[in-house]
């Protein structure tokens, strides 16, 4: 199924490209000629003189009298497969066949395809651009004298990274596998979790030069058709030479490129992606990228974590509230602290005000600058800790802790309460990773607003933020749903995490054609008889 789609779409795309630029990067020759020399000349010209391009000329046919060539990129193809399953049959086994099939070269190629090569995926192509493109993705091409067709054998076999534990999205009880850079491995990870034949990988190639493979993953009947159409349309619009990472795609297809908030989700965990797809979303996988994009992305998703569903609902609900609290703290705490100190000291409880005022005595900087300085210092430390060679990490943390925590306070540059506030904020900002970026920006904005206008400024920025959030859409779905527009059923997975047996329907805002997830009334109950037994014992 997917192979068929792949071919169809790919062909469409290629022919479009050819129409678009008749004189492209390669020679204008579209079809293969019958002359092998000529074909090889064109290929050599197109593929250049790089030494990883191998053009191996051999003689085939039972009488070893037909010139042929095997073309591949060294390092991209599986050498074992090349030697044992392609070169050996062609050069050795073919000669042992006494049944002289035909001297006709054209039928020779068909014969090789159907009876000689013992490999899985072989396609026959007519045009030379296709040969070039496929060789560059790790196919082996076989051309023969007097045949205007080429055999393309999928022999991808390069060094890959093993499936490893997720590095960024950790889970206590969940699976310990994460996506790798190989698209095929990633699709297999998903396929292993959903054995539904309706699970579809729609393939595309993207990037004019990089020609990166991409898969749109969805389940027919669960993911709304118009979502797939919309994704396809947005992907078709991309016209760039290189897509290095799936986040390139994110920036090309997102709904609100000017928003601070992400409207495209991403995950490195197959289980998360599968769960999202089963809710009626679609995922985008890109070769070379160990992350999957998931659309549409709703605001509440940032607060959901795989462990919410693996743990029992009560604790999961508590943790979700803690995440919400942490998010609010990470945005508001410095701003509110600054505005209370500079505009509204009456809002502090008296005893707290006295200790805050005591810590404030003799500090040289105004509170706003103090807060901004500390925020900046933290961001510097964070960035340094992230980019620094691992062996130097220790130095950063020691210097950072000493400089920020100890020395700044005892030198009388920064007040201890400010250090506590900034430290709390910093830790809290990592509770909700998807919004860590936007949270940092809003934190600075809130601090400045609180320092300039007090709580009034903070309320202003909050209103702006809320109205902006309410206006956002992710592929047509309201960003704040199911909270606003309100959907009571959808609230079962927002501020509380309802038990799994109670979440019968898929999120209504995603508009899945198959709304029912499971039959209702599955609350587990112990059988009557066994409880009576328990009583009598």
């Amino acid at each position, binding site marked *: 199924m997917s192979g068929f789609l792949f071919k169809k779409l790919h062909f469409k795309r290629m022919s479009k490209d050819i129409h678009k630029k008749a004189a492209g990067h390669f020679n204008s020759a579209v079809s293969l000629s019958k002359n092998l020399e000529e074909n090889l000349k064109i290929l050599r010209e197109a593929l250049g003189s790089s030494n990883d391009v191998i053009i191996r000329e051999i003689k085939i046919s039972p009488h070893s009298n037909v010139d042929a060539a095997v073309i591949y990129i060294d390092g991209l193809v599986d050498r074992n497969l090349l030697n044992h399953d392609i070169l050996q049959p062609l050069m050795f086994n073919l000669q042992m066949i006494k049944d002289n099939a035909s001297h006709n070269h054209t039928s020779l190629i068909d014969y090789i395809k159907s009876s000689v090569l013992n490999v899985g995926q072989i396609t026959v192509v007519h045009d030379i651009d296709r040969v070039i493109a496929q060789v560059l993705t790790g196919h082996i091409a076989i051309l023969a004298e007097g045949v205007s067709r080429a055999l393309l054998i999928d022999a991808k076999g390069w060094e890959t990274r093993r499936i490893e534990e997720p590095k960024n999205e950790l889970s206590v009880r969940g699976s310990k596998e994460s996506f790798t850079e190989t698209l095929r491995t990633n699709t297999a990870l998903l396929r292993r979790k959903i054995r539904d034949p309706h699970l579809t990988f729609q393939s595309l190639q993207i990037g004019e030069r990089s020609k990166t493979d991409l898969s749109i993953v969805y389940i027919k009947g669960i993911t709304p058709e118009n979502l797939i159409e919309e994704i396809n349309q947005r992907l078709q619009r991309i016209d760039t030479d290189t897509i290095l990472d799936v986040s390139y795609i994110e920036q090309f297809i997102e709904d609100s490129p000017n928003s601070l908030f992400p409207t495209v989700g991403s995950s490195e965990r197959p289980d998360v992606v599968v769960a999202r797809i089963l809710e009626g979303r679609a995922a985008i996988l890109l070769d070379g990228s160990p992350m999957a994009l998931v659309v549409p992305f709703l605001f509440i998703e940032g607060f959901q974590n795989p462990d919410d569903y693996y743990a029992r609902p009560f604790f999961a609900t508590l943790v979700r509230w803690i995440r919400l609290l942490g998010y609010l703290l990470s945005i508001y705490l410095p701003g509110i602290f600054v505005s209370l*100190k*500079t*505009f509204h*000291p*009456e809002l502090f409880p*008296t*005893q707290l*005000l*006295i*200790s*805050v*005022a*005591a*810590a*404030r*005595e*003799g*500090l040289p900087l*105004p*509170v706003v600058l103090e807060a901004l300085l500390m925020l900046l210092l933290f961001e510097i430390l964070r960035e340094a800790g992230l980019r620094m060679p691992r062996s130097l990490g220790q130095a950063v943390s020691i210097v950072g802790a000493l400089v920020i925590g100890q020395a700044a306070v005892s030198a009388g540059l920064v007040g*201890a309460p400010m250090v506590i506030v900034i430290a709390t904020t910093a830790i809290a900002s990592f509770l909700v990773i998807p919004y860590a970026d936007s949270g940092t920006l809003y934190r600075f904005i809130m601090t400045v607003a609180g*320092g*300039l*206008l*007090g709580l009034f400024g903070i309320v202003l920025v909050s209103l702006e933020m809320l109205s902006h959030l309410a206006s956002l859409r992710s592929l047509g779905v309201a960003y704040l749903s199911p909270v606003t527009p309100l959907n009571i059923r959808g609230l079962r997975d927002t501020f509380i995490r309802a038990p799994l047996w109670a979440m019968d329907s898929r999120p209504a805002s995603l508009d899945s054609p198959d709304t029912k997830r499971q039959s209702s009334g599955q609350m587990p109950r112990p059988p009557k008889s066994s409880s009576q037994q328990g009583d009598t014992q």
Partner: protein
Amino acid sequence: MKRKPGLVLILLIIIPVIISGCWDSIELNKLSIISGLGWDINAKTGKVTLTFQSIIPSEIKSAGGSSGDGGQKRGDPLHTIQLDSSTGSSAYDALNRYTQHSSRRTFYQHTQVYVFGRSAAEQGIYPFLDSIARNPINRPNVLMVVAEKKARDTLRVEDGMENIQAIGMAAQIKLSAEYSQYPVVTYLEFANRLISETTAPLAPMVGIIEQAGPEGDRVQKTRISATAVFKRDRMIGQLNEEESRGLLWAINKVKKGFIIIPGANLEIVSAKSKIIPELQDEKIKITITIDEESNLLEYDGHREISSNFLQELEKGQAREIESQVIAAVEKSRTLNADVFGFGEAVHRKYKKEWPVLKARWEEIYPYIEVVVKVKTHVNEIGEINKALIKD
């Protein structure tokens, strides 16, 4: 020249930020946080003295022992507060002069108490009340206190526990109110009573006592000694301990506390009271009903606890409560000050007749018939029901 809309937008954003700026902002270390405010009037010259008790935050830091040079000996009793007085012809005149010897702006939002010197209270505190009410920076929940002597002296008595004296004094007043000894009166409650015209405002009175300190020295302490009764804005008298309790019974302000009757002590568990006015032929009759429940705390006799005995206890209690209320009523009659708010109770029930009554309230009040009905109940008798020593 053609204007670019983007530039205009940026200017529109930047200009308000710059010109509105931080004109309202204040830095904590430029503020003098006033914890208590005193009000004295010199009887001879009529000059007003404002006393500012302000917090010295840096001293609190070292007293907290967080920095290296902490552990300062608390030899200087008032090292955490600064007491500064300023004299002028009015409250704002005095405040104005205060800026001549203060390095920081005053900050009133955390003021705990307003202390009025006795002579100032007797002369009338209206100018002060007005200046407080007019300014939005003042909070309505500041406690009103009348000093037995001068406000300034009361504000400089160290509180043994709290390092800010005014916070300690406020806590002291609240604790005594919790144990139903003297009323706690906020500025708002005071003003409300003032507005009602017939009801007399109240405030606890604070005096200074001397006790032997731990090192044999004399240590001063503040002590709540009475309830000051005002007529309009002038203090006209005071209720003593018993009368104050009687007042609290009548106005439903008793929460917990002790009842001491001969031979036994009881702890109040709950108390409720109601003032029910009745108007008959131009004569006003007020019924005060009090419902009280208590636990037995101490019994000095040797009798076994029986239902008879409990009934006696309940009766004794009721008598005690009744006599307290009657004492308060008697005192208020002699002062001719409606401390209970009888007038407001009549007002609520007899709206039509009220304007006439209100005009003559001063004449009516001393002759109002007051009936006190007390219902008491002893809930628990404690862990033992037989006396340790028998007869």
